């Protein structure tokens, strides 16, 4: 301290002391009112930069939590839609089983077909569902409906127009998670198992591989019939020139007036119509395999006769380009350019015309399966009950397969949802931890600050009191 204090130095000293203490008081006040220990980064640069780092990490977590929130919403919606869809498919399955139950009448079947069409329409709506303007099951192709209906050779077919990409979200540092499941994998998965022919016309699979998907119709048409009987059959001609027949290939024909039966091929003997009945000039002779020939017996002499009826036909996939059935080729190639289908047919077994359902098994989507079964039940083609059943059974497996896919998708969605929830919890915990650290660095410790403030106030008061006394002492007070 000064050995020789002067007025000027004393005043300066007292003044500085008061300013310093006042500043400390103001500082403490600022800390209390803002709650922060670090008001400007220069107050504690090291702490401030640590706080900034922690803040950055907290921000990162917030971003990830945001993304997870969005993803969870979408997954939950998808889960509920898939649940509904699974229920609808199960309902469809039971309707089909009911139809296969032997005791349904055509009228009943019509009702069931209508039901199936309703279920299909509802499923289509579900598959095309959108949340907030975004299709749930379109992959990343968001410009239009993922499942679209179009007319393929007279039948309504649904195709998947989305893509296979999964929408991803960034839910962690360098951690991407797929959120959506492409609709193609759920409702139209392609798990090829083989090509199966319904068996209606006798056409079967050729040797070369085939290309196509879903249910495909092979149109086999009857062109001409030629009758050749032995002497006893003189006078028998084909009714309507064979226009209403469906036989293809050589079929044996036997008429036995004695037993009163006629037999076509290996089929059961059918009773001959009585002379004079209207059927006599238009006798529809069938066998167990559905082959049909119409005979005009009016000029027949009633003698037993045997012979053959030979039918020719052609086949096509699109009803515009017809390939003749030559009954010897085992690998005829048919191409449908509009659907990009290539089918190789072994024609040696064809015995009748008809619309043959060919199924690329494992590639039929649920909508096409339901549609095809409904069309079968409506029976525009006039098939027998057993033929209808065969057709329905051909596609029944596809319903189960699609149902399994929906259930699998549901479980994938569920596990993704669970994973996101785990991440969310983890981030929430980490966030709390970071916030605690941040608070420890940044926030003012109230008890400490209040103590500091009180101490600064006391020191200020003492300084002021002492200063005023110092400044008042002067010799002048004592001189008279």
């Amino acid at each position, binding site marked *: 301290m000064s050995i020789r204090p002067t007025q000027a130095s004393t005043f300066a000293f007292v003044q500085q002391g008061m300013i310093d203490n006042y500043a400390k008081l103001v500082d403490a006040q600022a800390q209390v009112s803002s709650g922060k220990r670090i008001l400007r980064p220069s107050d504690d640069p090291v702490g401030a930069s640590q706080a900034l780092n922690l803040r950055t990490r907290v921000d990162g977590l917030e971003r990830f939590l945001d993304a997870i929130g969005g993803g969870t919403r979408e997954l939950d919606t998808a889960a509920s839609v898939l649940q509904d869809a699974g229920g609808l498919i199960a309902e469809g399955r039971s309707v089909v089983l009911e139809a296969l139950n032997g005791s349904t009448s055509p009228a009943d079947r019509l009702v069931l077909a209508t039901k199936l069409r309703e279920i299909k329409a509802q499923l289509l709506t579900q598959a095309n569902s959108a949340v907030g*303007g975004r299709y749930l099951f379109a992959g990343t192709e968001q410009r239009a409906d993922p499942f679209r209906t179009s007319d393929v050779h007279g039948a309504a077919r649904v195709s998947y127009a989305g893509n296979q990409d999964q929408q991803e979200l960034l839910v962690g540092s360098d951690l991407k998670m797929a959120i959506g499941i492409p609709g193609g994998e759920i409702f139209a998965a392609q798990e090829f198992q083989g090509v199966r022919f319904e068996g209606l016309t006798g056409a079967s699979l050729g040797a070369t591989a085939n290309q196509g998907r879903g249910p495909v119709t092979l149109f086999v048409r009857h062109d001409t019939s030629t009758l050749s009987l032995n002497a006893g059959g003189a006078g028998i001609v084909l009714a309507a020139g064979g226009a209403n027949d469906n036989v293809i290939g050589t079929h044996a024909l036997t008429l036995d007036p004695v037993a009163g039966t006629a037999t076509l091929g290996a089929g059961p003997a059918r009773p001959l119509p009585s002379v004079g009945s209207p059927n006599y000039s238009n006798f529809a002779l069938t066998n167990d395999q559905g082959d049909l020939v119409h005979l005009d017996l009016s000029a027949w002499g009633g003698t037993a006769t045997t012979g053959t009826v030979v039918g020719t036909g052609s086949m096509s996939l699109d009803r515009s380009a017809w390939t003749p059935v030559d009954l010897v080729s085992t690998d005829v190639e048919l191409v449908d350019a509009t659907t990009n289908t290539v089918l190789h047919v072994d024609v040696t077994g064809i015995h009748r015309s008809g619309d043959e359902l060919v199924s690329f098994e494992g590639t039929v989507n649920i909508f096409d399966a339901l549609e095809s079964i409904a069309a079968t039940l409506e029976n525009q083609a006039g098939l027998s009950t057993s033929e209808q059943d065969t057709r329905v059974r051909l596609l029944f497996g596809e319903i189960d397969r699609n149902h399994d896919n929906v259930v699998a998708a549901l479980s994938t969605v569920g596990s993704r949802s669970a994973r996101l929830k785990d991440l969310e919890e983890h981030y929430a915990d980490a966030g709390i931890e970071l916030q605690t650290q941040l608070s420890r660095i940044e926030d003012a410790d109230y008890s400490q600050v209040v103590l500091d403030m009180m101490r600064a106030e006391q020191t200020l008061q003492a300084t002021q009191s002492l200063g005023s006394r110092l400044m008042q002492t002067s010799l002048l007070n004592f001189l008279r």
Partner: protein
Amino acid sequence: MSSLGLNTGLKALLAAQARLETIGHNVSNATTPGYSRQTLEVANSGSIFLHGVLTGTGVEAQVVRRTVDLLVQARLATQTSTVSRLETRVSTLSQAENLFAAGSAGGLGQLFKKFFASLTSLSATPEDKSLAANAVSGASDIASKFNLLSSGAGDLAADAVQRVKNEVGVVNQLAERISRLNAQILATEPGGAPANDLRDQREQALQELAQFTDVRAVEDERGAVRVLVGGQSLVSTVGFQRLEVVTNSPTDVSVRLKGSNVDAAIAGGSIGGLLGVLAEFLPGLRDNADQLAHEFILEMNRVHSTGMPAGGPQSSLVGSNALQDLDGDGQVTDELLAQAGLPFEVKDGELFVNVTHLASGTVSKHGIPIDAARTTVGDLVNALSAVPNLGASIDGQGRLQLQADSGFGFDFSTRLDTTPDAVGSFGGGPATLGTPAAGPFALAIGDTLDFSGPLGPFSVAFQPQQFQSIGQATAAEMAAVLNADGNFQANGLTASDVGGALVVQTSTGGPAQSFTLTGGTAVAALGWTAGSFAQGQNLQVSPVISGAYTGGANGVWTFRPSGDGTIGTTAGLQVDVFDERGARVARLDVGAGYQPGTELVVADGVKVAFGLGNLSATNHDQFRLDVLADSDTSDLLPALGLGGLFVGSDAATIGVRADILESPELLATSKSGAAGDAGNLLRMLQLGEDAVAGLGGQSFTAHYAEVSGGVSLELASAQDAAESESFLQQSLAAQRDQVSGVNVDEELARMIEAQQAYSAAGEYIRVINDLTAELMNIL
């Protein structure tokens, strides 16, 4: 009685009076800054011989001397310079800290956060237009903030320059004053008495000068003071010089004596502080902001330009960075790309552009090689224009313009070409004969190829003028020669270059189409066998590529069948996939058991599906697929400012591309081209986390935190230094005051002493007077 007694008394009286005057001067100047207390020095005025006795003659006032400690004063001046310099530094750094405001709501760190958060929201629904607008406005905020940082740093520098100018003016005034005081002191002091008050004033002026600059004051033997500022003589014994400010640039000034061409090295005082801040801190601040902006633009644009907007490929783009005509010949097309004044570096590499036919969705992919040492601007424009359905040009301002033909769009993404077999050279409908390997082929002059087509046999010869070098004939050159040949065309044949291999085909498909390679001297060079027969088919394999390439480096894959056969039918039929070095990437089973149309995984996320058709290894069926990890390895797109999100190259020029600001749906969110794909957004988000090479391996937010943290650290250390130096200054001031200050109590006590001396002297005179009167009375 002699007059000695009266004289003595008179002298005592006068001395006491003089002392009182000095005391009065001290008391009245007790609070005058810079005043040094003065003391009257009195001495015994000697003795004379009187009446044989050595008698004293009383007191004599000699000189009024001021009490100073020169050393303390000099140290105080130095300390004042130091404190002033530090306080100036603190003030500027404090403003800079405000500018950066790292933690506050409007700070750049917060804006980065908001931008990346908006990208996250957008990534969930990339087609949402309002979220896209939000993201674009976040980017715009960042750009504005950078502009503000840049202009703010500029403003700080301009302020500092102005202050330097102002303070140099004050220094000049002080120099004049000191010089004037010098002259006055020199004029007064030879009279014998020290010019105390003038010296005090001069000392005060020097202390004031020390606030502005570092001062060295040396007093010569005559009493004038020489003042050295920054090593240069400001005030000399005969006069003074003026300082002037030399402006090297709006933010770079130096101070020197007028008429000198050497800068004064002013290192202390507020001028020294300002010059120091102008020289290293503020440019460093600006450089940091510029570097951060530069890297941000580069990285963001790299990702953005290789993505696609949700709305699909773009039909036109204009670059934002102008190519400059550096050699001044009026043409910009002869400039090397790497040396055309572009703000970002162009490296060796390749640029891939996809051209999409919008109606059908068919995509063609084209690679343009870039050689930093050879490719000129003109080369680039020609190469881009050579891409079918694309046109490139340089506009009047030197910017590259790309325009797709009507009905087409282009993009630079890494998405795979979904239909890579453009000509049907892999199990396609036409009759096909391909070469087993890619060119160049070693042809000799006059080599021929002999064919037999529907119209009969014919031969095509190859001449040197049709090739750049006939010994290195490329497939493209050979195809051009064949396609121009009349016989070749007449027989319905066409030739093409499939990834460097020559492929000869019939122009239509079907089993009726066929031709034979009967012979020719070029057959061996091409790796063909004479007598090869090719026939077309009804079916087409039409390979379809799907998925996304996840490998790390660009490559070219070649697909070749291992034998002849039909897809899905022939037992053991396989397709081999080779990379550009000839190593086999995958072997795909496409024989019996493979369902045509099913996807097979090749490698690295790439999938392929083959349709039903016949493949021929004998005729070297093949197709090539470009697999890209980076479609712009030369960084050409950010250099040209083509298709980026930001324009500009540093903190002052950064902005958001005008057409994106207007139509936020042009934001390149998609990586695969699908509207709902957020792949490119995810890449941008990952940028926010990744280490950036140009920032020393830190992420953007981390680097920004470091820069602003650096400012705060400097400020804090400057504040600490200022505080401790200021404390030292106060104690020096107290020391000076101790020596030279006036203590009023002390003066009052002395005043009483002088008063008593005066009274005593008066009393003595009265006694002498009485004695004299006594004597008079006696006489």
